[in-house]
């Protein structure tokens, strides 16, 4: 039987149609995955900040510290992905997949894709005025007993902070602990010396020492007003000293007034 050209053409058309259909079917099956993979890659790429080296080179160390050796450099015009930060060091990944630690000082010289310089929070005097959290330890005197404590603050704005504190006091006659929450108002927050005023309340638990026969354990509510001074040392550190007037709302007829002073070292972040 003689085959006409048209039939062949038709057959070809049929085959191509089938191929086309198969392609469409295949792509419809594969495409979502491919798209998902693309999105995944995009997300991964977006997850890390990409910075460009504009200085002659960027040194990478093996660890987050100036004592660790420099093993890699990133050349000008290459980019790095910022993975994480540890104190004043950033872990970055180069275009070639090499990871290392760069100092914050060097990182501040890198540029974002839009040409702006990368902003690094170094913890300077401005940071002392504006930050979110504070963490510190302090020691002092609470009505004649030695006081040891820690505090955590959250800044609502540069002047107003919420203060959470837990302390332990050890005296000759009594021991105890207290937990307090208060508001702290800082005057002149952007000065190296910044005074503050505070007001708060809490719970104090007082227990007599075993060697003495004194009243039983008791837990009372307490309120305080205080004033103090903050002094910025350097980097992220500052000193905090304060004097407080505490009133313990006892179940007895009279409230108890306790004077307290303390001095501590704190850091902001």
């Amino acid at each position, binding site marked *: 039987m003689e085959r006409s050209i048209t039939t062949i053409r038709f057959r070809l058309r049929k085959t191509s149609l089938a191929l086309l259909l198969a392609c469409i079917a295949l792509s419809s099956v594969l495409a979502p995955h491919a798209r998902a993979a693309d999105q995944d890659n995009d997300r991964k790429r*977006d*997850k*890390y*900040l990409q910075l460009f080296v504009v200085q002659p080179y960027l040194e990478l160390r*093996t*660890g*987050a*510290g*100036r*004592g*660790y*050796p420099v093993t890699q450099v990133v050349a000008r015009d290459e980019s790095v992905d*910022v*993975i*994480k*930060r*540890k*104190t*004043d*060091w*950033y*872990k970055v990944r180069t275009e070639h997949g090499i990871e290392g630690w760069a100092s914050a000082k060097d990182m501040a010289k890198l540029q*974002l*894709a*839009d040409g*702006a310089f990368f902003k690094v929070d170094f*913890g300077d005097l401005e940071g002392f005025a504006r930050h979110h959290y504070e*963490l*510190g*330890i302090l*020691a002092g005197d609470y009505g004649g007993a*030695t006081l*040891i*404590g*820690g505090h955590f603050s959250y800044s609502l704005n540069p002047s107003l902070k919420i203060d959470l504190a837990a302390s*332990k006091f*050890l005296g000759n006659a009594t*021991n105890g602990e207290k937990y307090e929450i208060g508001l702290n108002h800082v005057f002149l927050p952007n000065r190296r010396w910044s005074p503050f005023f505070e007001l708060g309340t809490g719970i104090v638990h007082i227990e007599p*020492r*075993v*060697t003495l026969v004194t009243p039983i354990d008791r837990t009372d509510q307490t309120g305080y007003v205080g004033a103090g001074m903050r002094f910025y040392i350097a*980097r*992220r*550190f500052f000193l905090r000293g304060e004097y407080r007037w505490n009133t313990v709302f006892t179940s007895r007829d009279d409230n108890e007034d306790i004077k307290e002073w303390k001095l501590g*070292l704190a*850091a902001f*972040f």
Partner: protein
Amino acid sequence: METRTRRILLMRPLLQAAVVGVLVLALSGCQALRWPWLGRDRQSVEPLETEEQAEQAELDELDRPPPRVIDPQVERRKIKVPKIDDENFELGVTYGFLSIEDFTTNAIYGITGSYHVTEDFFLRADVGRSNAGRTSFETLGGNVQLLTESERQFTTYSLSVGYNFLPGEVFVGRNVAMNSSFYVLGGIGWTKFAGDDRLTYNFGAGFKVLPSDWLALHIGVQDRVFDSDLLGRTKVTNNIEMVLGATVFF
């Protein structure tokens, strides 16, 4: 004989008019030229705008966008700076032994947490718990009991400031290098022991190795010093602990 001048003067009025006309035209041409002695006058007459106006014009010139050679159809990329993961907190567990003065040496286990403020300094809080054994006096004295079982429980709390020094690398075999650092620390806290809370000063040193960025292995020695009047007379006791620890950064 008529002189040449006289001849000109005697010329016909028509010719005279033509000569005068040429002269006038030549003079007006001179007027159009810039003569140095006329220049000054002209400048004083000519300024059309004051200096302020000129400045304003110059500023306007600056404000005006430069002439566009190519109109770029590229949208400026908006950079969203993602939050960079901070790893300044360290939390972990410790286990080792504690030698309680006048008592035996026993196991101590604890929890430790640090906040690294800079690469050098950190703030640290520790809690440790141990059990005191029997004193030599109790062992020799037969039935003598200085403390009840619950009073033998030794719990210590401390808040310290630490300083990292001598950072470097340690090598395990041929292919593994791990970051390491020595640190010293000192602080204040309290110890609950023999039914009483005692103000305690602690100081010590440690060595840490970081197998990875987020994991640290420690070995540390600390002395916990407090006053004790347990044996009749108040004295300073030194309680030395040596612990191994594992911490993670987050």
